[in-house]
């Protein structure tokens, strides 16, 4: 297994290199440049030329890429062309927010999705099965933008139960330890802050969880159904085990691999793709930052940001793959 892990880790390097080249080319292919965006209507030829020179935009593409790669090898992602802040700092400041949201959304999606999937599979071809899959279809089809606003209107405005924007009430602060506000509040014993942070987290996490939940539900359902058709399930029933034990102890455990794959993929994509949710709920995360960077043609920020997200995605899936061998003895013993 160590050899396998080692090989996979080595494969990371060419993968990420290819990604960085692709992103570099794509962002430079989009017309316009940060100098133009920064100066807007008041871009005089002299101002543009000078700004471009300072931003290093005058150099040929391969030189610019070389500079980026060189910095990367030193662990330096460069400075944002728009804000002059180090790109690594820009990401570090926003990543915990995205992580917190993604974890919360995945939690809801996993519990809800796996639960619904098992329920549907064990009640195959009954009304419950149709209903749960219907819910899944609705979940995957609802535009997050609309859903988010509806949740806000219902829980935030009409009922007044939950706040509608940000991570905490204005003026409230929680001592920063990990950057995940709910966790930090718990760690510092700030009960008031914890409840406040959780309340702020609820709606965006719920909105964000709907699509992954639907996907996980469907995947779980089909793989549990597949497992339920196996001989060992018939044996288990024949042995006299109650249906719930059959489903949970035997079918689900054996059917878990595809679900695990989907969990990994969904989590990876949530880490970089929660742009709409972050924008609507004014959640200061990485997705939103990256989108704005693209609009501003902030080459450095986009290159660094996409690379970090891609790396996270690849690493998460690597962990999932390695997790197979922990969960499934067949993989572990090299079948």
């Amino acid at each position, binding site marked *: 297994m160590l050899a396998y892990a080692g090989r996979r880790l080595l494969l990371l390097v060419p993968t990420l290199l290819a990604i960085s080249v692709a992103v570099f080319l794509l962002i430079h292919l989009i*017309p316009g440049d940060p100098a133009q965006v920064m100066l807007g209507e008041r871009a005089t030829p002299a101002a543009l030329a000078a700004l471009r020179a300072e931003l290093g935009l005058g150099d040929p593409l391969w030189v610019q890429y070389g500079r980026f790669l060189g910095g990367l090898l030193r662990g330096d992602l460069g400075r944002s062309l728009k804000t002059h802040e180090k790109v690594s700092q820009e990401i570090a400041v926003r990543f915990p927010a995205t992580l917190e949201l993604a974890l919360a959304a995945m939690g809801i999606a996993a519990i809800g999705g796996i639960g619904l999937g098992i329920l549907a599979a064990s009640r195959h071809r009954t009304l419950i099965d149709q209903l749960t899959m219907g819910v899944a279809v609705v979940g995957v089809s609802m535009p997050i933008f609309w859903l988010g606003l509806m949740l806000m209107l219902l829980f935030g405005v009409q009922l007044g139960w939950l706040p509608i*924007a940000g991570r905490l009430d204005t003026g409230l602060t929680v001592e920063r330890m990990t950057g995940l506000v709910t966790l930090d509040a718990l760690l510092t014993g700030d009960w008031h802050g914890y409840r406040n942070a959780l309340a702020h987290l*609820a709606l965006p996490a719920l909105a964000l969880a709907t699509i992954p939940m639907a996907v996980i539900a469907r995947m779980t359902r089909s793989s549990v159904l597949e497992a339920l058709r196996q001989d060992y399930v018939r044996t288990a029933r024949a042995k006299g085990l109650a249906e719930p034990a059959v489903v949970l102890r035997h079918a689900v455990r054996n059917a878990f691999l595809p679900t695990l794959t989907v969990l990994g993929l969904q989590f990876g994509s949530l880490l970089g793709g929660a742009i709409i949710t972050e924008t609507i709920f004014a959640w200061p995360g990485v997705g939103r930052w990256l989108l704005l960077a693209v609009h501003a043609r902030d080459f450095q920020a986009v290159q660094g940001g996409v690379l970090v997200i891609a790396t996270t995605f690849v690493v998460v899936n690597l962990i999932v793959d390695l997790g197979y061998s922990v969960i499934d003895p067949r993989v572990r013993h090299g079948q």
Partner: protein
Amino acid sequence: MSWSDVRPLRTKVRRPESLLSGVWLSLLAIILAGCQSGGRDERGVGGRGGSERGGSERGGGEAPATLVFGRGLDSVGLDPAHEVDGESFKVIESLFEGLVRYREGSTEIEPALATRWEMSADGLTWTFFLRQGVRFHDGTPLDAVAVIFSFARQMDRHPPHPFHQVGGNYPFWRAMGMDDVVADVVAADSLTVVFSLKKPSAPFLANLAMPFTSVVSPTAVAAAPEDFFKHPVGTGSFQFVEWVKDDHITLEGFAGYWGGKPTIDRLIFSSIPENSVRFLAFTQGDLDGMDGIVPDDVAALERDPRFTLLRQPGLNVAYVAMQCEKPPFDDVRVRRAVNHAVNREGIIHALYRGLGSVAAGPLPPTIWGFNSQLTPYPYDPARARELLAEAGHPNGFETTLWTMTGPRPYMPEPQKVAQAVQADLAQVGIRARIVSYEWGTYLDLVQHGKHDLCLLGWTGDNGDPDNFLYALLDRDVAAAYPSTNVAFYKGAELHALIMEAQRSLDHERRVACYVEAQEIARRDAPWCPLAHMTDVIAFQRRVRGFTMHPTGQLRFHGVTLAGEGS
């Protein structure tokens, strides 16, 4: 015995459904526990009304008077010399000051950090006398050294200032052409600064009221040269406390401010990008003020007695530019025909939702020198057809109308405006095909003159008419690509007036030049001016004493919150 005869043993196992419902219940419990008190009613600050705030304050004493202002995007940075975006300036303007500033409610200049100034007869030497006893937020005293530092680091000279190019690129210094105007800046004594100019420039004084010429604390910059943009130190009435990126920026009233401590103790700029969500947060009472109000929400806010809505024509203009170098728009009759063909009122009513005023010329009404006698060409399609026939186009002609895809500060829906203009032109026989690009590309192309007709606009920088007229209609600017004069209008008369006004230091003379310049612009019609977009700001009723400024500056120094300490 067959399989069907075997009866399953009933074992006691928790049914999956009850297990799951247990999980759901606990999740619900956690969330509800969160909303119980962490939700709406136990707000820290900025909540509804003073009484709740007083109640939630721990440890006795007065709750700090806090004003939470909601805007869309977060600031990019807080170093006045490096930033270009409005969101950065909103905060910078409370932290920093310059030698001079704009008068309340006007774009005329009054003293700020300089109490008075003199200029030599030839206009090449300006002497500023600094205010005594002013200190920066970090305690550094304001003196000529600090002023020179703030300017010299932006100048492109040899040898360069030690902090030149540190932390940024001074886009505004460049864009306003300061290196073409300012030769040097030196100290005559500790409280006197002397600028020597390369040429007389009347707008130079107006530039000194802009944020990019604000005076920064040299001590603070030296302490954190690459990071000054997030640790700003100035002389303004508010000082910096914290910045949580993409979330909020907190400032607090500066007790040592030379103009007296502001009534507001804490000023928080909160960033909520989605307009409708910001509006909801405002109506809920989470925000004390907001801008970026969608036209549809304006009426609702106006009717509601809980809120105060303020509005004023912004320092901007939106127009259709005609490429005067490309036939048939090289013929003034055709250009006038276009002016008669476009129904400006209709466009403002439908597409600006009433948040605009008809533009008669390039200058907005709030700027000094505005020619209030001018009226736009009346909407008269018949007259337009006549003029076209006279010009040799009795059956109209085909052309292109260029537009950007995204909103601009002076035009909320450019593509729809383009469609409206296209329809108006079609009425008189001009068949325009719409060409659209995303902003960056669009600007590049129209500044290279690729269009026949194009939509564009301008937001004023320094409140000086030269800022509009020179950049947008002067023939020197149109001499090279890219050009901000996208009409590529090269009228000699207008040019002469602009040049005279630029060099004259006699305010009355300048006003006369600009008044005449606007008449010529109307006569030659290189544009069909459309509208000046209205700036709108809303506050909770309890916020008193805020007045809008023509430049869009947010001035919080004199603002009070009613119901304090009650």
